[in-house]
């Protein structure tokens, strides 16, 4: 580990990168060869087709007008008369904004509690030495392994005993500090060289200060991962909110969108539009956060 002694964030390479322009340079400041660039784009586009293609079909279905055959065979990809009408119909059929707001509340709360809780616990597991640390780690590992499908009703009973059923708090609580997130944070903190904190320690920083000022900023990337995972988890969850909520005004988006599968005759276009509504915010969030994953890699790269 001592070999990986982490250099301070300023990279010497950053300087060279800004030097003579012409062409692209990689993160090490070396010029990227043309054939390599082409190869990269070809690969990127191939993976892109594979990952996004199916969603484009969903998007296309959601834009198809009421006179278009969506089950024709062979399938048609482009809507003949694209229309946003289906989106209006979704919001006319269900209070989609109310549901989205509930989902947003739940997801945001989940992000905050998970980031805080798993960073604290991860730090304790990785850095602090105390009796019972192994037991604490084991607790989280076991919690991660419990098959959720088998405990939903017991969880519901617990919530009822706490008088929390039918509240958004109850939706958040069981996943508010995800065991897997704790273990991710623990991994991140463990990979930090001790020397960084040692210096702060010598300067008289106590454990809270070291945690907040030194350790936490160094694991921003993993924190962003935890943030996006917990947002996504809360946003997509269906069974637990369904079980614990009974009042439709508190329903989250995933439950609400399920209404679009009508008891009498569902409409694929509506379902498709609902899907797009559900996925779009997550993609936007990811697009915003993704640069944090590349912290330290991105500097000194393209820029010209």
């Amino acid at each position, binding site marked *: 580990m001592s070999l*990986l002694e*982490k250099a301070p964030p300023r990279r010497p390479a950053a300087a060279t990168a800004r030097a003579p322009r012409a062409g692209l340079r*990689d*993160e090490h400041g070396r010029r*990227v060869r043309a054939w390599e660039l082409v190869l*990269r784009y070809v*690969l990127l586009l191939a*993976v*892109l087709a*594979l990952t996004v293609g199916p*969603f484009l*079909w969903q998007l296309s279905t959601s834009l198809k007008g009421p006179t278009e055959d969506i089950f024709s065979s062979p399938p048609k990809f482009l809507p003949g008369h694209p229309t946003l009408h289906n989106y209006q119909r979704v919001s006319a059929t269900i209070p989609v904004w109310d549901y989205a707001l509930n989902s947003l509340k739940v997801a945001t709360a989940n992000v905050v509690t998970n980031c805080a*809780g*798993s960073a*604290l*616990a991860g730090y*304790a597991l990785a850095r*602090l030495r*105390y009796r019972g640390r192994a037991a*604490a780690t084991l*607790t*989280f*590992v*076991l919690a991660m392994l*419990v*098959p959720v*499908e*088998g*405990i939903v009703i*017991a*969880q519901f009973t617990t919530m009822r005993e706490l008088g929390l059923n039918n509240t958004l708090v109850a939706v958040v*609580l069981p996943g*508010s*500090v995800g065991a897997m997130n*704790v273990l991710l944070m623990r*991994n991140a903190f463990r*990979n930090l060289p*001790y*020397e960084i*904190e*040692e210096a702060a*320690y010598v300067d008289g920083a106590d*454990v*809270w200060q070291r945690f907040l000022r030194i350790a936490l900023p160094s694991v921003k*990337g993993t924190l*962003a*991962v935890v943030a*996006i995972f917990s947002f996504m988890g809360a946003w997509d969850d*269906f069974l637990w909110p369904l079980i614990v909520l009974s009042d439709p005004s508190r329903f989250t988006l995933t439950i609400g969108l399920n209404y679009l599968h009508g008891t009498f005759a569902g409409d694929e276009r509506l379902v498709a539009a609902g*899907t797009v509504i*559900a996925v779009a915010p*997550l*993609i936007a969030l990811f*697009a915003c956060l*993704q640069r944090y*994953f*590349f*912290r*330290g890699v991105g500097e000194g*790269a393209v820029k010209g």
Partner: protein
Amino acid sequence: MASSTVLRGRRVKRQLPTSPWLFAAPGLLIAGAFILYPFVSTVVNSFTDRRTLIPGRFVGLANFRELLHDDMFWTGLRNSTLYVLGVVPALVVLPLLLALLVQKNIPGIAFFRAAFYTPVVASVVVVGLIWVWLLDERGLVNSLLETVGVGRVGFLSDQWLLLLSAMAVTVWKGLGYYMIIYLAALANVPRELHEAAAVDGAGAVRRFITVTVPAVRSTMVLVGALSSVAAFKVFSEVYLMAGPSGGPAGEDTTLVMLVQRTGTGLTGRVGYASALSVVVFLVTVALMLLVLRADRREES
């Protein structure tokens, strides 16, 4: 590891004695109250014949004995095990390659990164519907195969192809997820290592093996552990593609599907399903230990 012992050694005493527990408390409380405590009642139920609405009587190991004679249980165990074997290697390697592909900052890369992540954020129900449509007897994949001259393939009617298709969907959906974990890890690989290797004249492949892999090894182990646990507990992908009854004649049923099928609803056999849950739990614990042990052996 030498430096860490120094830090631990004498300085620990000056920390507040309670702070480690204070740090871990919220997480432990949540895991304990809402995951582990409910699971304890599952363990208790596994020794009873409890039904959803009918309180159980203690039946000892009867549920576990019944399990051994239940063909469906063995089918489920087989399928869940196959799932681990099929999915985990792909999920350890492919996302790493993908992470390397999107790591380099070339124009438009932010778009690609976000795009590759879309399968992860879409709910598994949507993903299932889309893939069922694609792999249908008359779906897109089959029309392509027919034009190429391969002919139609019964992806959704053959028990093995169904399992394979579900695995493909799991890998497809997991790529972006584990890609992110790798990206976070790659960001921590000091570029000096790469530079040193490049100066030594190492090519891309050799740098991958000598620099990248060792540097993200602990992450690979983590991904291996996470994905094998998730694969063993697979439910949604198979449920959506093979149908609630688990493929033709139930041959694609996985263990968690069996838990869901026997234990939920108003006529659920909670006791028996709990016994199944306990088995699933024990197997995943064993899997985890296996991965960690393999890791340790390699390290030494």
